C-alpha cells in the first residue's frame, strides 16, 4: 500500500511539474521573449486563467505526501527550511506578478510586475531543481529522523547543477508552450529559443549523468537490478528525440507534448532510481526514509486511495472543462 502511495505522490509531483512547469517556463522567459508590452500581455493572458489551477497540484501533492509519509514530510520540510521558505516567497511573488500586472493600466506598473513574475518564475524553476538535487544526493538524516541543512549547504554543487537543469528544462517547456499557443512575433522567438534550449537539455542530461552516479550510485545501478524500470529513462530519451523531430517538422503542439513526456520521463526515472527511498540519507548513513519506515498506518492509506481516486477523477473533469473553455479557439497561425 505504501508503494501505491509512492506512485501516487510521484504522479502528483509529475503532473504538477508538467502543468505548472509551462507556467514557470513562460515566466522564466517572460522578459526575454516578450520584448514589447503587448507581447508580454499575450504571454500572461495565455496562462492567466489556468496557472492557479496548475499550482493546486503542488498543494494537493504536498497534502498527499503529508498524509501518506508524515515522517518524510516533517524531515524534509524542516531540514530544508530555507529552501522551502524561499519557495513560498517565490510562489507569492510569481502569483502577485501575474495577477497584479493588469490591475493598473500603466506601462511602468506592468513592467514592474512583469519583472517580478519573470524573476520569481525563473528562480522557482531553479529552486525546484535544487530541491530535487538534494533529495537525490541524500540528506544528513540523523537517528531521530531529522536533519539540518543551512542555506549554503542546500546550495551544494550537485544541487546547483540539477537546479540549472531544472531551469533549462522548464524554460524549454514554456518555450514549447508559447511556440504552440502564441502568435508571431512572440511565437517565432519562442520557437528559436525552444530549439536552442533543446541543445541545452541534451548537454545537461549528458553532463548530469556521471555526477548523479557519483553522488548516488543506486540511481544508476537500480536499473540494472530491475531492467523493467528502464522504460522510464527510455521514455525520457525517446521524448527528447521526438521533441527534436517535431521541432524540425514545425509541429509545435506535438513538440510541446513531447516536452511533457520528457519531464514525466525524467521525474519517473528519478523516482524509480530512488525507490524504495523517499528521502535518502547521504550514502553510507543508515537513517534514510523509505516507503516502509515513513508511511502511516494501513487504514489511512486504504481509505485515502478510495477518495483520492474519486477526487482526481473529478479534478480531471474540471480541468478538461476549463482547458477546453480556454483552449477552444485555435491560435492564429503564424
Amino acid at each position, binding site marked *: 500500500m505504501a508503494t501505491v502511495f509512492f506512485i501516487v505522490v510521484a504522479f502528483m509531483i509529475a503532473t504538477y511539474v508538467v502543468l505548472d512547469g509551462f507556467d514557470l517556463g513562460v515566466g522564466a522567459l517572460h522578459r526575454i521573449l516578450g520584448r514589447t508590452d503587448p507581447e508580454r500581455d499575450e504571454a500572461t493572458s495565455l496562462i492567466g486563467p489556468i496557472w492557479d489551477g496548475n499550482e493546486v497540484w503542488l498543494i494537493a501533492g504536498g497534502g498527499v505526501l503529508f498524509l501518506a509519509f508524515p515522517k518524510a514530510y516533517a524531515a524534509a520540510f524542516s531540514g530544508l527550511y530555507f529552501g522551502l521558505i524561499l519557495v513560498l516567497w517565490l510562489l507569492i511573488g510569481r502569483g502577485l506578478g501575474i495577477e497584479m500586472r493588469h490591475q493598473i493600466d500603466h506601462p511602468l506598473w506592468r513592467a514592474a510586475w512583469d519583472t517580478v513574475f519573470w524573476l520569481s518564475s525563473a528562480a522557482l524553476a531553479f529552486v525546484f531543481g535544487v530541491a530535487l538535487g538534494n533529495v537525490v544526493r541524500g540528506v544528513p538524516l540523523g537517528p531521530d*529522523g531529522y536533519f539540518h541543512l543551512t542555506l549554503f549547504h542546500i546550495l551544494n554543487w550537485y544541487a546547483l547543477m540539477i537546479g540549472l537543469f531544472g531551469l533549462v528544462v522548464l524554460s524549454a517547456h514554456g518555450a514549447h508552450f508559447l511556440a504552440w499557443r502564441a502568435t508571431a512575433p512572440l511565437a517565432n522567438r519562442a520557437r528559436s529559443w525552444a530549439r536552442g534550449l533543446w541543445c541545452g537539455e541534451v548537454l545537461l542530461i549528458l553532463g548530469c549523468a556521471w555526477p548523479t552516479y557519483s553522488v548516488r550510485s543506486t540511481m544508476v545501478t537500480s536499473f540494472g537490478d530491475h531492467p523493467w524500470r528502464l522504460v522510464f529513462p527510455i521514455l525520457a530519451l525517446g521524448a527528447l528525440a521526438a521533441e527534436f523531430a517535431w521541432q524540425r517538422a514545425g509541429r509545435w503542439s506535438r513538440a510541446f507534448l513531447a516536452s511533457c513526456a520528457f519531464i514525466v520521463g525524467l521525474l519517473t526515472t528519478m523516482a524509480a532510481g530512488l525507490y524504495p527511498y523517499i528521502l535518502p540519507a547521504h550514502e553510507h548513513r543508515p537513517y534514510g526514509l523509505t516507503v516502509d519506515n515513513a508511511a502511516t498506518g494501513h487504514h489511512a492509506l486504504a481509505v485515502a486511495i478510495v477518495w483520492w481516486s474519486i477526487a482526481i477523477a473529478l479534478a480531471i473533469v474540471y480541468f478538461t472543462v476549463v482547458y477546453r473553455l480556454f483552449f477552444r479557439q485555435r491560435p492564429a497561425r503564424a
Partner: protein
Amino acid sequence: MSSHVTVDRLQFALTVTFHYLFPILTMGLALFLAYLKSVAYLGGEHRRLALLRKTAEERETYDRAADFWAKVFAVNFAVGVVTGVVMEFQFGTNWAQFSNFSGGVIGQTLAMEGTFAFFAESAFIGAFIAGRQRLGPRMHWIAALMVFTGSWVSGFFIIVTNAWMQHPVAYVIHGGRAQLQSFWGLLGNPWVFWQYAHNMSGAVITGAFVLAGLGALYTLLGRHPEFSRICLTAGVVGALIFSTLQIFPTGDQHARRVARYQPSAFAAMEGLFPTARGAPLVIIGNPDTQRRRLESSIEMPHFLSFLTSHRWNATVKGLNDIPTSQWPDSVPLVYYAYHIMVGLGTILWVMALIGVLLLWRGRLFRSRRMMWALLLAWPFTYIANIAGWTVAETGRQPWIAFHLQRTAAGASPPGSVPAGTGIFSLLGFMGLYLLILILYVVLTLRIVARGPQEGGPPAETAPPRVATTAS
C-alpha cells in the same frame, strides 16, 4: 517555553491570521455572489418564488452587481491563494514533530481539501472571472456555484483538521505516532459540525456587512442607487439571519462542546476560577490569575450553568480544579478574546435587527445615521472572527493536539530550525505581508472608487483584454 517554539508560534499566528482575513470574505462573499447570480439567471417575471420575480432590467442589475463583486472577490481570492499556500507547508517547516506525529490523521483532511476543494475552486474561479461574455450566462452561473461550493468545502476540511487538534478522535497511537483508526469517525468528530456552522456563519456575517457597508457608502455619496439597494437589502437581511444563527444555535452549541471537551479552555473563556454550582455568567470583569479571581465584574447569576447544560444549578469546573500546567498559557488572552467576540456579535446582531426594521418600514435607504453605522461596522466583523479563532487556538493551549501532544513538543526540533532561523523567516513574512496588504487595499479602493457599471444597454461584449484570474 524555549525561544524557538515562541518564534514558531508567532510566525504561525501571524501567517494564519493574515491569511484568514481573506478567506473570511471569500467564503462570505461567495454565498452572496451565488445568490446574485442565481437571481439573475433563474429569475423571471412570472416566477412563483418572490425572490426570483424580477424583470429583465432588474436581472441585469443583479448581474452587474455580481460583476462588480466578482472584481472585489478576485483580488481577495488571489491574496487568499498566495498566502494560503504558506499554511500547509508551514506544518512541515515549523511544526515537523507535530506533522510527524499527526500527519497520518490530519494529512487526510488536508489532502482532501487540496484534491476536493482547491481543484474545483481554482478551475472555476478562472472561468468565473473571465466573465459571462466569454462563458455564456448558464456556464457563468455554474462557475459561480462551483466557486461557492469549492470555498465552503475547503472550509469544511480545514475545520475537520482543526477539530481533530481540539478534540482528537478516531486514532490509535502506534510507534509514537497517531494513526487513523476510523475515517468516518474523523469526519464525524462531534466537534466538527457546530464549529463549522459557527465559523461559516461568521464568514457570511462579514460578507453581509461588507455588502451593506459598500451600499451605505454609495448611498451617502449619492452614487449607484440601484446597486446600493440590492447590496443594502441583501446585506442587512443576510446579516440578521446569520448573526442570529451565530448566537443560537451555533454559538450556543459550540460553547457546550467546548465546556464538555475542553473544560480548561471554557473556564478561561469565562474567567471562572472556583468550581461552582449555579455558576454566574460574566458580562464584564478582569481576570487576575495571581489572586485567582475576577476583578470588578458584573455577573448574571446561574446563567453560565444554564447555558452549558440547560440546568440552573449545574456544576461548572473552574480553573482552581485544573492543574496550572494544563491552563492555557495566557488565561487573560482567552478571556478577553472571547468577550470581544461575544460583545461584538451582540452589537452586530442589534445593528442588523435595526437595519431590517428600517428596511421593513421603507426607511433604510433614507436613514443617514444608519448608513453611517453600516459604513463603519464591517471592520468589526473581521475583529469578531479573528477574536473567535484566537479563543479557539489559545484556549487549546498548552496543547497542539488536545491532551495528546504539547505545543512545545510539536515544533520542529531546534537542531533543524533554530530560533534565529525562525526569526529570519518571520521578519521576511512581516515585510512581504505588509506589501501585500498595501497592494490589496490600494486595488480594492480603486475598484470601489470606480463603482459598478451604470445602467444603459447590456454590458459591452468585447472580451477582456487579458483574462487572468483577477482581470
